[in-house]
Structure formats: structure tokens, C-alpha cells
């Protein structure tokens, strides 16, 4: 059992804590939520082997993402400081890798701090799956005490923060742990999920990997994540064609069990005065048919890495749920061709590409599934910084560079007959969240300045509220705020 030890609890106002800890090969990913986070500071400390502490002082969702990580021994601590009082939870690899998840996993301390200690799903998954038998349906064996703990905790957390993702992830984790037998053909979807709750059915990093992509009618998160810098040239693009993606998970045993748990969680909050319920599986967020993520040797998608020469042609994507058809949120795209695909979903985005510099979108037949929003193909500004939400409305280029040159950035006219909602250079009238919009951004300069800024941002880890200021300062050097 992943047993955390609370060494000091005296925080009456931090009365709701949920910790889910997932370890996967090269990553350690952690989420925690506290009530009243604006009043509390906390950070994670991770130590590998002898000494390699990493401290992360975050906002409301600290995340430790270490790549590559070969450490097999580690200790993890979560520190919270609230008005001068301290609390920390501690676990090490010995207890965290244990497979069991027992009743003690829900511990309610005297102070009212409820700590949920999640099972290490990813360590237990693949071997379990190998032993399962295939049937005509997926079946689940629920431990009633675990189910009770899930319902109570997810309901309590949702009552506090109405965070759909947290509730959904808790349910997904529980279901993955409880699966007993699998329907033939469903194994890859479960195996993918057990590598990570956001893991796609196919994660393709090289063009050769596309040959392994087969038609599918069952996947739980994304169907395909194409994570590459693209093809060699316009004449030798990476091409995905004639793939049929049917979102059968929405009408599966998995979604049925998922929705029953949702019902029970919502019943707990029936009279809590909440205006939202935990949503059913068909409304699970962040599900994509085809997701494109650029990468390059020097920068990642969050710093504007470019994917070039990719063609998506004659594929079919069907979903009765909120699956997004073809989606890209970060990085930039040159010579991207989206041609003759048939997409029908009830998702908000049918085709949505942020940062498309050039290419063609044509002949795609897009329709809305029942109750879905109007289908649309939308182009958005290039986004920088991930959660920093920096949107690039236009670029500036060094003198002498022109269209077609490496390092030249411009939103070119997109070829093709598709009706497009082109918002690449449009700042919305009402800006949602923390997004900022920038004109005349010198992207190569930004990428060259970033390492120094990143080091500074890391030093600012002790003062997280300074991070947006650091980003702003960086952007001021390379562009003009809209």
C-alpha cells in the first residue's frame, strides 16, 4: 500500500486533501488539491537514490515531470505551509510500489484532513492484464470498501472544487484497478491507460510507427497522438490515411460502469447546492481522435516547435461523445494537409489547430453527432508556454528572411475549400482565463532566450506568483502585447 505518513496535522482550514500519485517509467506525476490554496504554500520534494532532491512549489496542481528518470529508489514528500504551520506527507518506493489498496487508504485525520492514497495503477497494470481472459464484454470486480472510498472522496473533492478532471481521473483509476476480464480487442486500450491516465491508444513518435496504427472501435483517451517533427519534405510527408476511428467506448461496459460511479458521486452531492454534476463518460475532457504534437531537437511544443509535412487524408472519426476530431493546441505546423476526412462528433472541436502556419484543409466532411455543437474547423493562434497561455497573433522575422526560409514564421493563407473559422490573428473581445495575446513575436529569438528564462523561472519556484511576470518579461523582449 502506498502509505503516506502525516507527521504534523494542525491545519483546520485545509480540510480536504486528495493526493493521487502515479508513477510511470520515466515520470512521476502527482496531483493534489487543497481547499483555500490561495492561503497555503506547498511543494513536493522528491529524492532519488542518494541525493537528488527536486523541489516544486506550485499553484494548485504541482506536477513533477522528470524525463528521463532511471531512478528506482525514491522518497517523496509533500510539504504544506499554512499560516506558519506545517504538514508533510511522506512515502518511499517500497510502499508506493505495493499493489494493494486497502481500507486504510482512506484516512480521515482528527483535524478533518482527508487523505486518499491511490493505488499505483501503473505498476500493477500490465501484468494483471496478461492474466485476464477475454470475453464478449469487459467485466469489473469492485472491492466495496474501495468503491465506497472512491465515492465519498470524489464527492467531497468535487463539492469543494467542482473539478471535473479530478473526479474523472479518480474514477478512471478505480475502474482500471477493478477490471477483471476484457472483451477481445480491448486489451490495447486498457494497457495504454495503465501507462498513464492521459495516454493515447497510439503514441507515434516516428513515421515508421504509423504502420502500426490500425482501425479501432475502442479507446479510452486519445486514439492517436502524433508526436513528431514531421516528414522529410513536402514530397515525402508523413501520411495517415484510410484509418477508421469509431468511439465505441462511449457505449461500452467501461462507460456504463463509469457512469454508474458518476451517478453515485452526484447522489452524494444532490443537495449540496452545486450547479454542476460530475459529467458522464461521453463528456470526458481532453479526448481526441487525432492529436498533433510537434517536437524538435532544441525546443518542445510549448516553445513553438514545428511539425512539418504531415498529411491526414481520408480518415473517419465518429463519436457520440465529446471527442475532438483533429486537434492541436501547442506548437506550430508547416505544410499540414487535412484532406477528405469524415468527422462526426459531439465535441466542441471538430477540426481545431492552433499555430497552423501553412498547408491545406479541404474536402473534409464534418457533422455534429446528436446534441453536439455545430461542427466547425477552427484555426487558433500559436500558443506558447502551455499553461502560461501566451497566444501569438503575428510574427516578426529577421531582415533577409523570406517565405520558405528556415526560421521564417508567418500565418499564410490556408489552401483548400474548407470553410474555416480563422482566428489565428484575432484577439477575442473577452479574454478567458489567463491568456495574453502578442503581436510581432520573434519566435527564434524567444526560443534562444528561453533557456536562461527557464532557469530563472525555476529559481522562482519558491515564488510561484512571480512566474507570470517572468513570462511577461520574456515576451516583452520579443514581441508587443496586444
Amino acid at each position: 500500500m502506498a502509505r503516506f505518513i502525516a507527521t504534523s496535522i494542525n491545519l483546520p482550514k485545509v480540510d480536504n486533501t486528495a493526493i493521487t500519485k502515479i508513477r510511470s517509467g520515466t515520470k512521476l506525476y502527482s496531483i493534489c488539491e487543497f481547499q483555500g490554496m490561495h492561503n497555503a504554500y506547498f511543494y513536493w520534494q522528491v529524492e532519488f537514490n542518494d541525493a537528488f532532491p527536486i523541489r516544486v512549489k506550485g499553484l494548485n496542481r504541482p506536477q513533477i515531470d522528470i524525463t528521463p528518470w532511471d531512478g528506482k529508489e525514491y522518497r517523496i514528500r509533500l510539504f504544506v505551509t499554512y499560516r506558519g504551520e506545517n504538514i508533510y506527507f511522506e512515502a518511499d518506493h517500497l510502499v508506493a510500489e505495493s499493489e494493494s489498496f486497502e481500507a486504510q487508504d482512506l484516512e480521515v485525520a482528527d483535524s478533518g484532513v482527508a487523505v486518499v492514497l491511490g493505488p499505483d495503477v501503473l505498476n500493477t497494470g500490465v501484468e494483471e492484464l496478461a492474466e485476464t481472459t477475454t470475453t464478449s464484454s469487459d467485466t469489473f470486480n469492485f472491492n466495496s470498501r474501495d468503491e465506497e472510498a472512491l465515492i465519498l472522496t470524489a464527492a467531497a473533492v468535487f463539492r469543494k472544487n467542482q473539478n471535473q478532471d479530478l473526479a474523472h481521473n479518480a474514477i478512471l483509476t478505480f475502474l482500471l484497478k477493478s477490471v477483471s476480464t476484457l472483451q477481445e480487442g480491448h486489451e490495447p486500450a486498457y494497457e495504454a491507460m495503465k501507462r498513464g491516465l492521459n495516454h493515447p491508444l497510439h503514441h507515434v513518435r516516428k513515421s515508421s510507427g504509423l504502420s502500426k496504427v490500425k482501425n479501432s472501435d475502442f479507446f479510452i483517451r486519445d486514439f492517436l497522438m502524433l508526436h513528431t517533427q514531421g516528414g522529410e519534405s513536402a514530397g515525402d510527408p508523413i501520411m495517415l490515411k484510410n484509418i477508421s476511428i469509431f468511439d465505441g467506448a462511449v457505449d461500452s461496459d467501461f462507460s456504463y460502469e463509469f457512469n454508474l460511479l458518476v451517478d453515485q458521486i452526484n447522489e452524494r452531492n444532490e443537495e449540496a447546492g452545486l450547479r454542476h454534476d460530475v459529467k458522464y463518460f461521453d463528456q470526458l475532457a481532453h479526448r481526441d481522435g487525432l492529436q498533433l504534437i510537434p517536437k524538435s531537437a532544441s525546443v518542445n511544443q510549448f516553445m513553438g516547435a514545428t511539425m512539418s509535412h504531415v498529411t491526414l487524408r481520408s480518415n473517419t472519426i465518429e463519436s457520440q461523445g465529446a471527442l475532438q476530431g483533429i486537434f492541436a493546441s501547442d506548437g506550430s505546423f508547416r505544410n499540414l494537409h487535412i484532406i477528405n476526412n469524415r468527422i462526426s462528433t459531439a465535441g466542441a472541436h471538430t477540426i481545431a489547430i492552433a499555430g497552423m502556419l501553412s498547408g491545406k484543409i479541404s474536402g473534409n466532411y464534418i457533422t455534429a453527432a446528436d446534441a453536439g455543437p455545430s461542427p466547425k474547423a477552427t484555426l487558433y493562434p500559436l500558443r506558447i508556454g502551455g499553461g502560461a497561455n501566451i497566444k501569438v497573433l503575428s510574427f516578426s522575422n529577421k531582415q533577409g528572411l523570406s517565405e520558405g526560409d528556415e526560421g521564417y514564421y508567418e500565418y499564410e493563407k490556408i489552401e483548400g475549400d474548407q470553410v474555416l473559422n480563422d482566428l489565428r490573428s484575432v484577439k477575442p473581445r473577452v479574454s478567458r482565463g489567463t491568456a495574453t495575446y502578442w503581436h510581432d513575436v520573434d519566435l527564434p529569438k524567444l526560443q534562444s532566450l528561453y533557456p536562461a528564462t527557464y532557469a530563472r523561472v525555476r529559481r522562482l519556484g519558491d515564488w510561484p506568483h512571480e512566474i507570470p511576470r517572468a513570462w511577461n518579461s520574456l515576451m516583452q523582449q520579443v514581441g508587443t502585447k496586444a
Partner: protein
Amino acid sequence: MMLKQKTNPSAYFFGLMAFLLLSAPTMTSAEPLYDLGNNWYKMSVSVSFRNNSYHDRVSLYANKQAVSGQTVRGVFKPIPDSLKAALFSDQTINPFRAVFNDVQAAHQRGQLNNCPFVGVELSLNEHSQSQGWLISAPVSICLTGSYQRSREPDSHVWLLQRNAQGRYQVLMESAGVVQVIDEAAGGYKQLQTRLYNYHLSEGNQQACGYGSISWVNRGGRYWPTRLFSKVNGCDRHLPNANEQQRFQQVEEGVLLGLRRITGRVFKRADNGSLVY
């Protein structure tokens, strides 16, 4: 060679009687379904339909303090035709007809002929001579071949009662999850159901959300006592409205629905209580 069979005249009489018995729901007796009994404090029920099959889940809470229920599954069975007939009979008292007139109309058009109706026995009152059933059917799926997800659940629900005199009454009609609480008021258990705006505003593409409604029985009929509105799905159907506007629209829709069911104008207090 064909044999000509002579028909006994009395057979016409028995045939006519059989026809009358089958077509008059107050006179038929239902085959026994699974009886959920009375050994629980609270019960939560949901049935989900898909691909010509269905799943049911009943959670039974032993007492008021119980935080989780004992879950039983697979207890819903197809109901006899007599019960289905009773649901739609003009002889059956049903105050919800005004709101769910689309369901009644679908039945009259024969669109529910092949729709699976499943149920359990569930007595809501202490009167031993009455009999009750909780019945569920995928009305939306039967009507359209698919249901509009996130707008409404896939199951329509009736709580049907036959009294000692053999007369049927729909005590409750709703959709999705139903909760029954064994705290008697007027001799009947209390209920918690959902009223979806999509039902109340048929054809209105902006209809979204639902009201979670508590009901108590007075004089043999259920009356709403508390309402909590949810704006589920309104971000898609009312994209230009803010949260408060969505909430108000949902609540106004549900209150209007309650008015159509009860004939009373209700107002909701901040704590969820309904007054009229």
C-alpha cells in the same frame, strides 16, 4: 382436404371476456417481478439501456447514517403487457401526462411497441392491499434510434401503483436516477427524481439542465418540496449566457414544469425549499 371446424357459440363470449380483461388494465393482474422489499432506509435506482440490452443498478442504504449502499444488479425484468397497458391507459390517473405528453403521443403512434419496458416491484405506501412497480424504458432511444447525450438520460421512469380496488395510478414519472427514502409522509415513502428541461421544452434547442426534486405525498399524491437545479450541458446549449443566466433559465423551466404537473405556482427559497 380442409376440415371445417364448428365453433361453439360460448367461445365468442369467453373470447370477448378475454379481450376485455386484457384491454382493461385495472382488471389484469401483473406477473410477479423482483420485489425490492422494505428492508432499507434509502434506495437509489438507475437503468441504462444500450445495444438492445440494459443494465440496472439498485443501491440499498440500510439506514440514514449509511454512507454507501449495498448494490444489487440484474433485478429489472421485462414487465407484463398488462402493466405497460396500464401506463398509457386513459383510466390510469397520471398527473404527469401534461409534461410527458410526448411519451403518451409516441405510445399512441405505436412507436413504443417494440420498446423494452423493464421493472421491479416497489411498494411506496404502507397499504398492504396496494401493489407498486418501478418501471423503466428507453423512450428516447426507441423514438429516435439514438438519444441526445448529456441532455437527458436514456431511461424514462414510472412509479406505478395499483390500489386495493384495482385502479392504477402513476405516482411519479421522471427520467434517470430515482431515489426512494423510507420516511413516510402521508403514508408514502419520499422520493427524489429529476425533471429535465429538454422534456419540458420539446424542440427547444436551448433547453438544458435539470431539476433535482424532492417529493412528499399528501392525500395520495406527490408534491414537490425541494428543488436543486443543475446547469449540466448548458455551456453547449446556451453558449452566450453566463453561469447565472443559465441557472435562472434552468430553474424557471423546471418551475414551469412543476406548475404543469401540479397546477400550482412554486417559488424556490435559497435553501432549496419550494413554497406556493
